[in-house]
C-alpha cells in the first residue's frame, strides 16, 4: 500500500480548513495513516496544529520557504517525499502552480480537481472529476504504481474536526532550495474593482429584490459567506442603476462559471441564463411558477427580502 502524504496550505500561522478534509481523502485511498507535510519558516504552531489532525507530520522549516513559492516548495517536497508515494493537495491556485511539476519530478501520475474518490482497485485509484463546468462528470482511473499526485477540490470530503490525532512532528531537511522564480509581493485588488467572473459563489439578485435599499441584504449575505462570494445581478438591476454594470450576468453582461450561483428573485430569462455556464444553480423566488425553477438544481419558494437576512443570520451564527 502506497504511503499517503498531504501537503497542507497555511497562511499567517493558521492552517487552511482543507487540511481537515485531506485527512479523510487520505483515508479513502489507504488504510495506512497519512503523513502531513507543512513547509514554511518558523512554523512550529502550524505543525502542532497539523499534528492534531494527522498522526504524522513532517515539518520543513527553512527561511527560503517563508512564502510558498511553488518552485521552492516543489524542490523541498521532492527532497522529502519518497518515490512511489501518493501526495494530496487541496486544489487551489497553489496546487495548480506546484502539483503538475511535482508529479513529473516524482515520476508519479497526476490528477487534479477531483470531486470524489470511488475506491482503489489494485494499484488503480478511481476518482471522479467534473467537466464542462460540472455538466457532466467522469470516472478517471489513476495508476498509482509509481505514485500519484492528487489535488482534491475543497468541500469534496467532510472535514474531520475532532482534532484528536495526537500526531508527532518530525523535522526534515529541505536540501537545496535555489530557484529561478522569486516571490515579490501580494497585490490586493483595488477597491471597487468588481470581477464577478472570479467569484466561487455568486449571490445574484433580480427584480425580486424590489427596492434599492434591499441591495444591502445581498451585500450582507456576501459578507457573511466571505471572500469567495460576490454579488451579481440581472439586467433590470443594472438598468435601475442599483448596481454597476460590471455585476450583470447575462448575454449582454458577464458570463460566469461559479461553483454556486444563487439566483435570488430572478425569474430566469433566456438572456440571463445565457450568462451562467456552470455550477450549482440555486433559485430563490416567491413565484413557484418562475421559469428559473425549470433549470435550477435547487429551488426555494420564498420572498428573498425576508429569506436573505434569515440566511445571513444563520451563517453568521455558525462562525
Amino acid at each position, binding site marked *: 500500500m502506497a504511503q499517503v502524504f498531504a501537503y497542507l496550505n497555511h497562511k499567517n500561522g493558521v492552517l487552511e480548513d482543507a487540511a481537515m478534509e485531506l485527512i479523510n481523502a487520505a483515508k479513502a485511498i489507504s488504510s495506512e495513516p497519512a503523513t502531513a507535510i507543512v513547509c514554511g519558516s518558523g512554523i512550529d504552531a502550524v505543525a502542532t496544529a497539523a499534528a492534531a489532525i494527522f498522526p504524522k507530520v513532517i515539518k520543513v522549516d527553512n527561511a527560503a520557504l517563508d512564502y510558498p513559492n511553488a518552485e521552492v516548495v516543489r524542490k523541498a517536497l521532492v527532497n522529502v517525499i519518497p518515490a512511489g508515494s501518493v501526495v494530496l493537495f487541496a486544489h487551489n491556485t497553489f496546487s495548480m502552480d506546484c502539483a503538475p511539476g511535482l508529479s513529473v519530478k516524482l515520476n508519479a501520475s497526476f490528477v487534479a480537481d477531483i470531486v470524489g474518490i470511488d475506491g482503489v482497485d489494485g494499484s488503480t485509484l478511481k476518482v471522479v472529476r467534473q467537466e464542462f463546468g460540472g455538466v457532466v462528470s467522469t470516472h478517471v482511473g489513476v495508476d498509482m504504481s509509481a505514485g500519484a499526485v492528487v489535488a482534491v477540490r475543497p468541500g469534496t470530503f467532510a472535514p474531520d474536526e475532532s482534532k484528536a490525532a495526537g500526531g508527532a512532528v518530525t523535522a526534515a531537511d529541505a536540501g537545496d532550495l535555489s530557484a529561478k522564480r522569486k516571490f515579490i509581493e501580494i497585490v490586493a485588488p483595488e477597491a471597487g474593482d468588481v470581477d464577478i467572473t472570479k467569484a466561487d459563489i455568486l449571490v445574484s439578485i433580480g*427584480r425580486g429584490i424590489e427596492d434599492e435599499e434591499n441591495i444591502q441584504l445581498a451585500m450582507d449575505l456576501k459578507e457573511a459567506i466571505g471572500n469567495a462570494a460576490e454579488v451579481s445581478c440581472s*439586467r*433590470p438591476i443594472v*438598468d*435601475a442603476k442599483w448596481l454597476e*454594470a460590471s455585476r450583470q450576468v447575462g*448575454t*449582454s*453582461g458577464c*458570463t460566469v462559471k461559479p461553483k454556486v450561483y444563487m439566483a435570488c428573485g430572478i425569474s430566469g*430569462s*433566456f*438572456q440571463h441564463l*445565457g450568462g451562467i455556464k456552470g455550477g450549482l444553480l440555486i433559485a430563490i423566488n416567491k413565484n413557484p411558477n418562475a*421559469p428559473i425553477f425549470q433549470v435550477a438544481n435547487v429551488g426555494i419558494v420564498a420572498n428573498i427580502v425576508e429569506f436573505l437576512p434569515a440566511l445571513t443570520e444563520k451563517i453568521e451564527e455558525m462562525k
Partner: protein
Amino acid sequence: MEHLISPAHYKFLGFFPGAILSFLYVIVGVGLFAYIMAKRVAPLVLAKPDNSRFSDIPARLMNLLTIWLGQIRQPRYMTAGVLHIVIFFGFLTLGIRTCSLVVIGIFPDFALPGLAMDQPLGFLYNIAKDIMATAVFIACAIAAYRRGIVRPARYAVPEKYGHDHTAEAVFVLAIIMGLMVTESLFEAAAVAAGEPAFLMPLTLVWIFAKILPSSAHGFLQFLHIFSYYAHNTLFFFFLNFLPMGKHFHVITSFFNVLFMRVRRGNIKPVVYGITAEGLDELESIGVKRLEDFTWKHMLDFYSCADCGRCSDQCPANLVKRPLSPRFITIKARDLMFKKYSWRNDFQFGREPLVGSIYEADEIWSCTTCGACEQECPIGIEYIDKIVDLRRGLVDEGEVPQTLQKPLQALSKRGNPWGKVEKKRADWARDKEFAAECEVKIMENGDTAETLYFVDSITSYDDRMVSIAKSTAKILDACGEDFFVIGKDEKDSGNEVVRFGEEMLYQELKNHNMEIIKESGAKRIVTSDPHAYNALKNDYQVDVPVEHISETIMKNIKAGKIKLKPIEDPSKVYTYHDPCYLGRHNAVYDDPRDAIKAIPGIQTVEMVKNRDRSLCCSGGGLMLFYEPHEEERMAVIRVKMAAEAGANVIVCACPFCMVNMEDAIKVAGLDGQLEAIELTELITQHLE
C-alpha cells in the same frame, strides 16, 4: 429729375469705369470660386467609387422634385422648416436677380430673356423677387433670433465635439440679410430718384423708397452705387464662403439629394463592383481612414447643414450613448477641410478614423434604426457609413469581447447563442402545440409552396417561440400550405451584416439562399422584421417575401380569417413600429389595420409613431452588447406608451418584445402596461 447713373456707367474718381470694376468682381469672384470648388471636388474624384448612384434615374428625379425642390422633409420641424422654405425659395428667386445684377454692372441694359421689366413676366418677376427678398429678410431675422437668443437645444454642441456653431450661423444670416437690404436699396435709390416702377407695398424696397429723400440726388446716386457694390461684394464673399462650412449645402444639397439612397433597407457592398468572391483578395475592407469613404459619403460630409435633426431623432443620442450622428458628419467634414484644404496641398494621411475623430464605442452605439436618415432634409446617409466603419474595426479584430462569442456561435452553429442546430424547430415539435397545429419541417422531407422563415431568436428563445407558434397558427387558419426549414435554417444575418462581419454574413446568406432554392419555396413569410429585411433587401431572394402582418391583412380582406371581438374592450392598445418593418420597409399600415380589425378594440398612437418610431435598441446584436447609456431606449418607449394612455403595447418583432417586456418591469409599469406581439394578439382573436 435726372435719373441715376447706373453702376456700369459710373466713373470712380471721375475716370475709372464702373463696368471694369464690375468685370473685375466677376473675374476675381468667379475665378476664386472655381478654384475653391475644384479643390473641394478633387477629393470626391479621388474617393472610393460608388456606381450605384447613377441608376434609378426616375426615382432620383422624384427625390429632387419632392425632397429638394418640394422641401417636403422641412416641415417635420415646423418653425425651422417654414423659415427654411422661405429662405430656400427666396434664394431660388433672388439667385436669378443676383446673376442679372452682376451682369448689369457691366452691361447696364442686360436682362435675362423674358425677364426685362417691360415684359409681363419680367414685371411679375420683379414683384415676386421684392416679396421674396422681404420674406427672406424677415425669415433670417427670425432665424437669427432663434439661433442667437432662443437657442433650441438641438443646435447645442456638447463640449467634447468642440465649440458652439452659433456664431457661424448668425454671421451667415447677417450676410443674407445684407444681400436683401443692399439689393433693395439699389433699386429703392433709383426709384426714389424718379425711375418709374411699380413697387409692391410693404416690401423692403417699397419701404426704402418711401423713406429715402427724393431730393438728395447726390446721396441717392451714392447709395445706388454703394449698395450695388456692397451687394456684389457680399454676393461674391458669400459665394466663396459657402464651401467653407455648413452653408456648403446651398450648393451641394441639389447633388446630395440627386444621389441620395433610393432603395430601402439594404446595406452597401464592401466595395462597389467587387463581388463577394472578390473580397478575399482585398488588402483591407471597410472604412478605416478618411480616404476609404465613397465620394457620395464625402459629399454627405460637405452637405451637412448642421441642423441637428438626425441627432434629435437618434435613439442612441437620446439615451446618451456616445453617438450623435450629426457629429459623425461634422467631425469628418472638419477633417476633410483640414486634410484637403483649399489653400494647401492635400494630405493623404494613414491615421485611422477610429481612435482619432471617432471612438469605437461611438461606432458600436448605432442600432441601425434609420431615424437619422429618415429625418435628414438633404438625404445624408449614416447606416452605410457606420457599417463601413464597423467593417474596418472587424477587419482589424477590434470587436468588443462580449460580441465575439455570439459571432463565433453564429459561425459555428448559425445562431448567436450556440444552440444546437437540430433543436431549431423544437418549438414546432412541442406536443401541446403540435396537437393543435402541425407544421411541416423540411428536415423531415416536408416542404410546401410557402416557407415560414423563423430566424434565430424566434426559434430558440423560450419566450419568443410563442411568436413562431402564433405565426404558424395564423398561417394554418389562413389555409396556407407552409413549411419551416428546421435545422438547416441559419440566422438571416440581418444583424451580422450591419455589425460589419461581412464574410460571416456572406456565409449565412449563401447557405440560406441555397436551402431556400433547394426547398423550392415560391413565397416566403416571416414574423421577424429583421429576417424580412435581410431576405427582401439584403439577399434579394427571387421569390416574394412577406411580413406576417401583410399576410394577415390580405387574408382578412379576402375573408379567409375572421377575428372575434376584443375580450376586454376597456383596454387601450398602441402599436410600436419596429424599425425594420416601418422605416426600412415602409410597412406601417398593415399591422395597424390588423389590430383595428379586431372588433371593439381601442387604439391610440404614441407621440412618436410610424417613421418617427423610437427604436427599442434591439437591432445590431445589441442584445449582446450595450454601450454606456443613461437610460434604456425601451424604457423611454414604454413610458411613452403609458403617457399615450395605452394598457397594451403591441410589437411586431421579437427583439422589440424582449426589450419592451424588460422595460415595463424596469419602468415599474407592471400591472399598468403589458406587451404583446402582433401574431399573439391575432391568434388570441382568431375565430
